[in-house]
């Protein structure tokens, strides 16, 4: 539907993916999805994150089912993200609270299980290069975020998120907003980057933010991070 092609990922090197899920049939399904993209290779699979990463220490991206053996693995997610592991959470639990909690814990992206192959491949490719990818379900959670300390989004960013959530087609959103598809993606991605400032700090969030600044997606002062540090560092007269 509206999945974007991702360009310039990690050169010619294959991107290693680890899959953590406690349902073998889902692992096989995701493996089949990822096999459609030649730049991706599955290094290890299993139902225990530690065990899987022991077998694939060099995995670029970890696809993590949020519910493992009946428990929400948010703690594990935060632990992995803090050490810089790029974790893409995928889950059938698509209530907005769960999705936002996963972003807060440092997940690079959140994918609803039913969002399918295109979104899954696009999310993993983007995650490997520390770039944001916002599937429609996550866009819905962000646009409806009720928390008082939610990031401040611009009107255009909110509208792009809302329409993307509704239609699942960036081409249609672009026609509707009378802008290019590229600009739609920029609005959506900028909103996502603002979420790197929510929740506790994580190495993955810093990496997303740094790449977004490098790509010119956001300016440091829009996020407020460098300005506040500059204020802090100013020598006292």
């Amino acid at each position, binding site marked *: 539907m509206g999945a974007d092609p991702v360009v310039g990922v990690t050169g010619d090197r294959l991107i290693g993916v680890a899959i953590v899920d406690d349902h073998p049939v889902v692992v096989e399904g995701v493996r089949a999805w990822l096999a459609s993209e030649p730049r991706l290779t599955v290094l290890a699979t299993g139902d225990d994150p530690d065990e899987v990463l022991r077998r694939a220490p060099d995995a670029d991206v970890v696809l993590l089912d949020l519910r493992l053996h009946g428990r929400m693995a948010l703690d594990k997610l935060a632990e992995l993200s803090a050490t810089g592991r790029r974790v893409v959470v995928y889950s059938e639990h698509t209530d907005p*609270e769960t999705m936002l909690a996963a972003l807060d814990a440092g997940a690079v992206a959140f994918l609803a299980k039913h969002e399918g192959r295109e979104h899954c491949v696009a999310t993993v490719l983007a995650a490997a290069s520390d770039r944001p990818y916002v599937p429609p379900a996550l866009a*819905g959670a962000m646009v409806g975020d009720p928390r008082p300390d939610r990031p401040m989004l611009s009107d255009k960013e909110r509208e792009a998120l809302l329409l993307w959530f509704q239609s699942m087609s960036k081409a249609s959103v672009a026609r509707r907003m009378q802008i290019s598809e590229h600009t739609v993606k920029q609005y959506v991605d900028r909103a996502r980057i603002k979420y790197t400032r929510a929740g506790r700090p994580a190495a993955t969030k810093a990496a997303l933010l740094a790449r977004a600044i490098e790509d010119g997606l956001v300016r440091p002062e829009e996020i407020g991070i460098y300005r506040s540090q500059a204020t802090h560092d100013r020598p006292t007269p």
Partner: protein
Amino acid sequence: MSADLGASAERTRTRKAAIPGPQPGPADGSTPLEPAVLAAPAAVAHASDRGARIVAVAIALAWHVAIGLPAVLASRTQFAAPTVVLGGWILVAVTGAVAGVRLLRSAPLPPWPLAGLLLAVDAAVFAAVGERQLFAAANWVWGTLGWFFVLALWGRRIGGLLALLTTHALIALGAVLAHGPGAADLARYTMYVYGTFSLPVAVFVGSAVIVGLARDRAAAAAAMHTLAAERAAAERGRQERRDRLALVGAAAGRVLGELAAGEVDPADPEAQRRCVLAAARLRRLIAESDDVPDPLLHELRAAADLAERNGLPIDLVAIGNPPPLPVEIRRRLADPLTGLLADARGWARLTVVSGPGEVVVSLVTPDREGPDATGPPLGEHEDGPVQHLYERDGDIRWAQTRWLG
């Protein structure tokens, strides 16, 4: 997109859609349980308080008339100033009767002027009874006045009553000292003061405690009723979901069974359509985690159910809680989309994003070939406070209704 969408800080959880089936609530969408929770304890407390008021008024007037009056009349020749004692009795009787009636009608007289009048009568009577009648039953202010203080200060804090009774005791002490008392007089004085304090204070405090207890008990009972009603609603919702899961699961199982047995061909479009439909139904069941009925989502859910029964795979995703909306706003939000849904082919995606000041409902279906004879005019138009927007771009048909509060 207004900035306040999704700004309901008080909300901590999302309800996705209403419980299917008959709804207990009124049509305007307000939650039926809340008024009962607030009103029941207040009503019980009011009833309990009214009983205590009747008792207090009855004691004060009965004492004044049945005990005070005969003693005053019997001893009227022995007072230092009989007119003042009798006049005071009549004044307090009339004022007390008015205050009592007003109190029973929940429109009490202003407490402090009333208390001032009572204390003035108190002082005058003490000065007028004379030494011989000072401790006799004919000095009616000893026994009666405390009860009228209770009427005057009903429903107020105990401190005011204690202050009045203390002033009363000081006035009495002044009168006793003025007559050059002996040790026996002081002992009697102490006994009388104890007597005038204890009963009125006990009734005053007791009634306040009983009212408080009644209110607490009623609140606890109302909360339990609410909980039971919510549990019943949640249980009914769960049961409905279980029933639908059994139905949907059986349909999905049949397709899978036939595929596994090689009875149907995975390449057959009809088989694919059955798989897509079964998957969409299962997905919706998983997404329905709500247990609080919301009328807007309930209407949309009902329309989605109908479309699904007609074989249309449909996603219904709701984010946020719609605020309570008047029925005509809900109609304007839901009706255009439910109408289009009946005409949809292929698949449909129905979404609702709600915040305290904004609700946006959207329906996306694949665009079909040919002139759109049944569809609404394309473009944007207003229907009262609700914006409607229809578009088709060759890929999708997109209808959106948006209410801005």
